[in-house]
């Protein structure tokens, strides 16, 4: 098949539309017994017209077509240790290290050191386990967000959410990234491995190294006597802001006081100093 030499030049030149020659149809053109009509044709999915191309596609998928390349050797490097404090894993290949890092240190909760497979699950965990304002607000409204990305349902309790995950999203009943928060006294703070739902494997969010008693007890009862107020304040500012984010406002995590004030005034969330408990607690003002 010989193409005219000017064709390549035409392709290289800029876009253009050919000025059409005048169209002038004679009605006799479509008169019987002739039946030609110019029309674009459409083929549906399973049409046999597609057979040849489909077969080629599948040959490719089954790798019969392409030359089989040798698996590239994993580049080896001199053994090195993971730099994260407390982790003593050693590696001799960067791929392995990358996977280790992302699995174990990538999305780690700074409060309790649990690791999560994604930022999304980590965010949910921090809110639900470490945010006191979340607990308070959840008594009044549905705060437990469905874990499936794209689903905007919210629930009153973690139990309700689990039911939803199982019934609607067909998740397993023992989904490992939805452990309900256990109400523990600080004395028996989270000990690695003591999840109560232990099964053959190890749950993702339990870290491998022994962890010192958690500095942020997650139970409902907080005793602030050991804390400096300013640190607490900052933590609560962050909590409020992240909760407000959940509530739909567009503030990111903010740490500045002025931002906080704007937010509180805007959303009618203020704080009262509770003399009885000698602490600050946050209540939404109605």
């Amino acid at each position, binding site marked *: *098949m*010989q193409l*005219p030499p000017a*064709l*390549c030049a*035409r*392709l290289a*030149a800029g876009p*253009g*539309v*050919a000025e*059409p*020659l005048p*169209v*002038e*149809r*004679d009605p006799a*053109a479509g008169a019987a017994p*002739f*039946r*030609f009509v*110019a*029309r*674009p*044709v*459409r083929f*549906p999915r399973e049409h046999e017209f*597609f*057979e040849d*191309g*489909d*077969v*080629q*596609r*599948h040959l490719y*998928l*089954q*790798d019969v077509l392409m030359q*089989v390349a040798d*698996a590239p050797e994993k580049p080896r490097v001199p053994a090195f240790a993971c730099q994260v404090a407390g982790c003593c894993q050693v590696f001799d290949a960067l791929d392995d290290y*990358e*996977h*280790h890092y*992302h*699995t174990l240190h990538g999305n780690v909760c700074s409060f309790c050191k649990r690791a999560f497979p*994604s*930022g999304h699950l980590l965010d949910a965990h921090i809110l639900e386990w470490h945010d006191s304002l979340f607990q308070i607000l959840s008594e009044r409204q549905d705060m437990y967000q469905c874990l499936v*990305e794209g*689903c905007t349902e919210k629930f009153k309790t973690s139990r309700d959410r689990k039911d939803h995950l199982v019934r609607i999203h*067909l*998740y*397993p009943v023992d989904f490992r990234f939805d452990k309900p928060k256990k109400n523990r006294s600080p004395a028996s703070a989270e000990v690695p491995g003591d999840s109560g739902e232990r*099964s*053959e*494997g*190890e749950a*993702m969010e*339990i*870290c*491998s190294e022994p962890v010192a008693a958690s500095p942020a007890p997650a139970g409902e009862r907080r005793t602030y006597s050991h804390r400096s107020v300013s640190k607490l304040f900052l933590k609560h500012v962050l909590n409020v802001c992240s909760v407000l984010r959940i509530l739909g406002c567009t503030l990111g995590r903010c740490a500045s006081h002025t931002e906080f004030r704007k937010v509180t005034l805007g959303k009618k969330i203020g704080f009262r100093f509770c003399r009885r408990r000698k602490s600050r607690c946050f209540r939404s003002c109605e």
Partner: protein
Amino acid sequence: MWSRRRGHLRPTVCGVEELRRRRREQEAALRKARREQQLVSKRLLREDAPEEAGEGCVAAILGEAEVQQFLRQAQRGTEEKEREGALVSLRRGLQHPETQQTFIQLEGSMRTLVGLLTSNQALLQLEAARCLHELSHSEQSTIAEACLPATSYLLTYLSGHSSDFIELCLYTLGNLIVESEAVRRQLLPQGIVPALAACIQSPHVAVLEALGYALSQLLQAKEAPEKIIPSILASTLPQHMLQMLQPGPKLNPGVAVEFAWCLHYIICSQVSNPLLIGHGALSTLGLLLLDLAGAVQRTEDAGLELLACPVLRCLSNLLTEAAVETVGGQMQLRDERVVAALFILLQFFFQKQPSLLPEGLWLLNNLTANSPSFCTSLLSLDLIEPLLQLLPVSNVVSVMVLTVLCNVAEKGPAYCQRLWPGPLLPTLLHTLAFSDTEVVGQSLELLHLLFLYQPEAVQVFLQQSGLQALERHQEEAQLQDRVYALRQTALQG
């Protein structure tokens, strides 16, 4: 991309003849499967260490006791290397269908594997995922269904960060999806579409290719037009898919192939093509076609037909949408270079892959049918003669070539004048000698148009024994009327 495919080690000891034979068998099996509408193919990522290559070191089938032992070792072993080694042995055994059966029949085995998949030991996790991947490659839907407990985790890990791991999860999901409707019925409520929509923003080429593969498997499902494609069209996936197809330095052929096929499955299901046109599908695909032609010219054409085929199909089907005309009041695809590019591809197919010629000609038909502009391009770029050179390829190709010529001729005298004099009439006299009814029928239609708009052709026709060529078919039921009419015209003219 084309040489990057990881670890699909087949023994390279067989000769070229053996490879060809295998390929022919494979092709025959695929054709049969397609006719029965059961075309299923899977991807297998298998990274065997170099010392395992070769027939002699194929892993043995594992018995129940061995599977149990490996699982126990992996789960409760003390040394990390020991646990990993146990899983590696299990994975090798799982290359065999018999071991796969043994595994799924063993009580608690999947539960243990899922536990290891979700463990905090990265290498154990990876090996467990590889075991799952081997299982996903099985051709038995019972084995795919046995992997159901793992799917929520595979989806969860898609929003992680380890690109190798995500790639493995995606290929595993893709294999499971295509094997069993039960798997798809679970994956959709589990949120596979939003998970893919989030994952498609990954910068890693390998992840994107794997995602395209998984998505293409999802879209091939029988229930896709009703149950899957609407939610995909409602997500951000179409925009991202089109982005992957934009020509330029960032275009990766392997990724583009997968997403082009995804688009084809969506478009030929006719669910909501105007939406895609609204996203600029026509102009993106048109530009990609130009890019492909450029690649042919630079002879960077390895595997190019794998991408060209779905692009041609998408363009052709999209051109049948009414929206093509209404968007902006004019056809979105008007650039004459598209015709030039198409012919460069047709020549490429002619030399390398003749079975794709009908698909290219299909696009040419859809471009020219309602477009005086494109018909004029065919004439002004001197493409009639190259078109005629395709006639001998096959009857299907002949019919399509003649149809395109009819598209040009039916536009009136100004067009037929440019078809005359020239090789057209001798060619028609030649095709009239074919035995295929459809080819002859289309030739008669073209002759009719030529006689109508270019009466001088009649004389030459008669001089070159046209009547005899016609009369050969006067007994044929489908052709009689037209033969008679043409005969009358010729004798009166």
